[in-house]
């Protein structure tokens, strides 16, 4: 039976601010799951802490609202124990690139088959607008007492450097494009990262919807707007690593890194980097445990009538004196 968008909505009251970019992301996730017809019980949304942390409550699949900075750890554990699940981790930029930055890097190295979406708005909204790791040096958003004293993290660059094998950026007000990116991310064999630019209408008065739309740089005489956002795929950009050769991989990595630095009047979205040549974590486990996928930890039968079925007699024999 085909699933509808409404099947993935919950009745939970959504308390995000009016105009919040988060709405677009939740819609895009729900649309992607419906379009892919993923049975509800086969998907789990893990979320961190902050406004974006509530995402898991708004989607009608398993929803695990974890701890600040730790969403990737919970999500990876579930993905390893039950590789049949479609796992999406969602969290803010402070969650993933500040307090959770160590997990971000380690997750890239593992390349577990799942998707990680960062809701990137440059501020800590729920604690009233402090600077997040993606806010640029010297910028002063509304509630900062003085301009930001830290340099910003480059999420795309960090993901590429850490070993994520699918790296993309979406914009929360382009829901259809974002939905397509989420579908590509879920389908990707390995760890996918999606950096979603998401204006915070309450606390980030710099990177606003209008700013992304480029109203400030519009050429009034030409009567047209100049959105800062553009799509890499419209420029002929090819993010895919096609064959296993160092030169090819390095070229695609370098290209993604260079593109990730583009900011200001032109901001790229779309897929920056995609490499399915690198073995996902499950494949690395299969090298050691051949039946890992068929008999994953969650699938294993460990007892019969309350008695253990594991036979450790060979181990005990080796210890016997």
């Amino acid at each position, binding site marked *: 039976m085909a699933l509808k968008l409404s099947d993935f909505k*919950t009745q*939970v009251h959504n308390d995000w601010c009016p105009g919040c970019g988060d709405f677009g992301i939740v819609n895009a996730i729900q649309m992607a799951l419906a379009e892919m017809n993923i*049975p509800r*019980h*086969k998907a789990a949304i*893990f979320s961190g*802490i902050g406004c974006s942390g*509530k995402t*898991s*409550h708004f989607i009608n699949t*398993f*929803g*695990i*609202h*974890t*701890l600040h900075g*730790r969403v*990737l*750890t*919970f*999500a*990876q*554990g*579930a*993905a*390893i*124990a*039950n590789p049949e*699940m479609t796992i999406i981790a969602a969290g803010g930029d402070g969650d993933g690139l500040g307090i959770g930055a*160590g*997990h971000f*890097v*380690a997750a890239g190295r593992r390349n577990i088959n799942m998707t990680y979406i960062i809701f990137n708005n440059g501020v800590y909204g729920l604690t009233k607008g402090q600077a997040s790791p993606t806010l640029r040096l010297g910028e002063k958003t509304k509630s900062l007492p003085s301009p930001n004293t830290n340099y910003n993290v480059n999420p795309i660059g960090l993901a590429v450097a850490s070993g994520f094998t699918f790296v993309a950026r979406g914009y929360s007000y382009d829901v259809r494009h974002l939905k397509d990116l989420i579908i590509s991310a879920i389908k990707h064999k390995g760890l996918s990262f999606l950096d979603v630019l998401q204006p915070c209408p309450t606390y980030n008065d710099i990177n606003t919807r209008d700013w992304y739309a480029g109203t400030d740089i519009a050429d009034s005489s030409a009567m047209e707007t100049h959105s800062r956002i553009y799509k890499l795929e419209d420029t002929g950009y090819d993010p895919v690593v096609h064959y296993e050769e160092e030169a090819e991989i390095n070229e695609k990595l370098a290209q993604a890194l260079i593109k990730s630095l583009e900011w200001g009047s032109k901001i790229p979205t779309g897929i920056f980097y995609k490499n399915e040549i690198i073995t996902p974590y499950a494949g690395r486990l299969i090298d*050691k*445990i051949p*039946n*890992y996928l*068929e*008999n994953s*930890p*969650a699938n*294993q*039968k*460990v*007892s*019969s009538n*309350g*008695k*253990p*079925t*594991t*036979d*450790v*007699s*060979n*181990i*005990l024999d080796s*210890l*016997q*004196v």
Partner: protein
Amino acid sequence: MSTDLTWLIGGPQGSGVESGANIFSKVCAGIGYQVFGKREFYSNIKGEHSYFAVRIADKKIHSNVNDVHLMVAFDAEMVFRHVDEVVKGGAIIYDSDLENITIDEVHTLDIYFKSRLEKYLESKNKEFSIKGILESAKDRGVTLLPISFREILSKLAEDTNNPKLKGMIRMFNVIGVSLSLGILGLDSKPLLDSIDSIFSKKPKVAEINKQVANYAYNYATAKFDKINFSPNSVSKEPNTILVQGHQGTAIGKMVCGCRFQPYYPITPASDESVYLESNEILNVKEDRPGSTVVVQTEDEISAIGMMIGGALTGTRSSTCTSGPGFSLMAESLGWAGMNEVPCVITNYQRSGPSTGLPTRHGQDDLLFTINAGHGEFPRIVYASGAIEESFYDTGKCFNFADIFQVPVIHLLDKFIASSVITCKRFDPNLVTIDRGKLLDKIEKKPYKRFEQTSDGISPRSKLGLEDGIFWNTGDESDEYGHISEDPFVRIQMMDKRLSRFELILKQIPKEDQVVSFGVADNCIISWGSAKGPIIDAIDMLKKENINVGFIQIKLLHPFPTEYVKSLLKDVKTIIDVEANHTGQLGTLFKQNLGKNVDYFILKYTGRSMTSTEVYDSLKKILAKKANKREILTHGA
């Protein structure tokens, strides 16, 4: 005469002390002796001093003693540090090439030890050298057995026409073990067999080792008399295993169905995870092979997060750590408590605070594990007192976790982790697996993960179960798991979670909560690995017709107040024995029973207790000559 002797080997870390001791233990266990061995080492990879004391006896033993009967030293530091432990009538096998080494030439002797040593030698009027310290031992009636280890190698090199042998100082450990067995008058065949089994994949290496072993063994039997303490013959107990500390919980995890273990490396806990990974593919009766997925994470925060994620899929999941790692886990522990996630954290404690004595023993984390994490949530803290016990307790901890849907902290420690003992072969048939209210199928719809029930425990779905969708959150939540800040929902949910304590005390069998070794006017209360030295000390007192009681408290949180109270109702003097500074069980005892313990026997040098020192302190207490806090200090 009964057999009870301690053999001590030591030398620089990385010189084969541990493998030498393992061979010796294996040989003795193979003959039929009961073995209790313990390793001590610095936080260092190569060069610092490490030693291994192996006690063998013809009856079951549970601890080390102070006395050493035969010591093997292939470096000078071993002689300097341990000579005083060898008893009158005992013997020291040492490398005679060391004789002229002075204290100042041994750079790994720290200034604190050096000054104590020099003071001692000065008082005995001896020179500050190996010669001096050995003379002092000889004066006490210790037999000196000087042997040039290098000469043995060069003679053997000549005899076998294999000049390479000459410089193989890594053979020193095999020489030491072989000389010891010769001097103790034990058969050499088990030694050769055990070399074969250790090097089964390297027959050439095995051959060289056997040549060296034979040569040294024959050398010792020809040159030296047997020492006074030589063991008598013994009959071998059937179904005996020689097992290392971490293997109890590791094999316990395999048997009881733990299939996922994320962990971060830390001493002394990592051995368990490494062992699980080394045996990751499991035989399963009448089924395809199973497996334990072991993941080395980026830190302990990730280890516990992953464990919880795994547990949410219905997989029995666990992690293994020590104090510093557990400190990092505190926040997630609260999340697991809030969301009623069954999981087991195996905590091999060591000496804190902070990095503390990273490779040394301590029972420092009792109160911390009970209180770790902000807010109030249910958990179980359960402690095992020995390796054999830890195997069975591991299965119980997983059952407790599943039945009560709480995180369980299984406390062990460095003493257990670095012991090697003989015990009865673990019997997996004695393990039961009870998954509590874990569902395979959802009958009642809509499913509510935190549904109010009469016992406070809700049927548990898992990720992937059809119609079993649920939400979890660290926020307070309603029955579905959605965030709620309603004051009445809050009361309902807090009451639901915390009613667990009462249920736990009601449902866990009494004999799993507290083990009584007999109650007497003078009665010990203790927990964890202090058990071994205590029961051996009590045994020593029994031989003098002195009866001291002992209750081992295994369930430490929630505290079995009423049961402990009933057990101790007629006791006159309560003695708390544990390896920390403040007497944490005593604190817990007072908190729950409203009264103070009378005496503490405490040790916080980082070295485990010996039964000798526990016995000595008990004697002082019985003679009313003890301090309220008896502080133990034995061990280099």
